[in-house]
């Protein structure tokens, strides 16, 4: 009982210090942005477009914080190959078998400009089919309800 309480306090303290750190970082960012405000997209005249996304690799509760992907073997490859054109949300809301994910990759290669994934494809497909696999739900699922009192 006491141990549990202690743990709770420690967790709370850790949370608070993270918050403090974030606040300090936010302050620094806002000062810098005051001097260098963000300007609109202007890619029209660029001959080669290289993207520089700086993603942190922070994991919380088994999820990659910045993208929402499940932590697991192949995560880095999935982030590197599947979040350049669209957000991770397009991946994480879908569910397929190995064959299904392979079909999606082929469709993106044929029509959307996705590159050849080479040897990485096997790892990527295995990751997706493991963590984003279909669950049988029949012809109609039971309603998921959050109850409230109707005024």
């Amino acid at each position, binding site marked *: 009982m006491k141990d549990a309480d202690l743990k709770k306090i420690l967790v709370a303290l850790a949370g608070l210090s993270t918050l403090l750190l974030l606040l300090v970082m936010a302050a620094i960012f806002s000062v810098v942005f005051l001097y260098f405000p963000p300007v609109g997209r202007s890619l029209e005249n660029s001959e080669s477009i290289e993207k520089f996304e700086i993603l942190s690799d922070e994991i919380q509760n088994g999820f990659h914080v910045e993208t929402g992907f499940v932590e697991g073997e192949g995560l880095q490859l999935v982030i590197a190959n599947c979040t350049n054109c669209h957000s991770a949300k397009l991946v994480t809301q879908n569910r397929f078998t190995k064959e299904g994910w392979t079909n999606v990759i082929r*469709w993106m290669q044929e029509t959307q400009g996705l590159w050849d994934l080479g040897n990485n494809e096997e790892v990527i497909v295995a990751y997706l089919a493991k963590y984003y696999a*279909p669950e049988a739900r029949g012809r109609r699922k039971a309603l998921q309800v959050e109850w409230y009192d109707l005024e």
Partner: protein
Amino acid sequence: MKKGKGKQRRAFIKNSAYSILASLVGMEIVFANKMPVGYEPIIFQEKESLKSLGKEASLTVLNDKPWNVETPVHLLDDQVTPASKMFIRNNGLLPDRIKLEDWTLTLQGESVKSTKTYSMSDIKDKFRHYSYHLVLECGGNGRGEFYPPTEGNQWGVGAVSCAKWTGIRLKDLLQDVGINNDAVYIGYHGLDSHLSGDPNKEAISRGIPLWKALQEETLLAFALNDEELPLAHGFPLRLVAGGFPASASGKWLKALSVRNKVHDGSKMESPSYRIPISPIEPGSSVDEDNMRIIESMPVRSIITYPKSGAQLPFGRKLNIRGHAWAGEEAVKQVEYSIDFGSTWQLCNLEKPINRLAWQHFSATIEFPIKGYYEVWVKAIDMKGVSQPMVVPAWNPKGYLNNACHRIAVKLT
């Protein structure tokens, strides 16, 4: 002035800010020297958000690149959907807000008498304005219920709206430019860019058959609910073809192609916005020859009040209300059931304000005993076609799930 400032800023950033940036993010930007002139690292770009798109925070973001935002069904309670609650289905990246004086619409294609370009004042001054309330529903509305799952945004039932659109009739513009006898299809071209950044690719370039283009309600709209068209919904001009999958209603128009064959732009190809001609077993593959383009959306209804999960004391009556629509058809009847579809009762149903607008229904329900209920609604169109109670025909891309809407209610 803005441009000049931007240039200065960019130069400044380029010359001096990388080291500051690097120290802030705690790492070097590898290949910083290879950044194209004028390119800004993503962390410097202005972040689009629900708020910047003019949307309420209570909307559900299914995807933010590209933007796909769903309206929770109880927020569709308004008779006329406000822009702030209207769903967004984008295939590409939002264009920058263009200056009206820099914008033109070009009429082109094999079957146009001669290519012609219109300015916004040409469009607004030369042609009569019309307003209609039109249902726009994503072809994939309801996709989330298909099994086996199908690829794409996993919409619930809220990828639909019915708002007041104002503009000119597409048929008036086609008459002005002149089209040849062999014209069969109108394809649209927008200012949005492809997700891959490839300037030679169009994110989406669909359209409508000529018979739909010639309907009175098919508009080139510059206003939504009596206000300037918001950027998220196609500023400065968009096509609105109510009753068709909303992907036919192209946004941010820059050109229209009058075609002598079915338009072959991006997302016109199979399996996009197509369904099997002959029914198939769920999960199986379909030959391209056995796929047809979706035209009219099917009959559908939603309960917008109360929100699912309502608890009320036994003895109290429950008023329900919502909307029903049926693509190119009108709705003849809406019924509700509280016994899992065993028996059905009629709802009051209003006539549409104009063709292709949704119709409002309401009913007052008395429950026989305490307990858990589901209220189901089912609309029936003028041809006698009704909504199914289970998920209808599976198709490879998960379109047209018009299974009856259900809410949970508890009498305590």
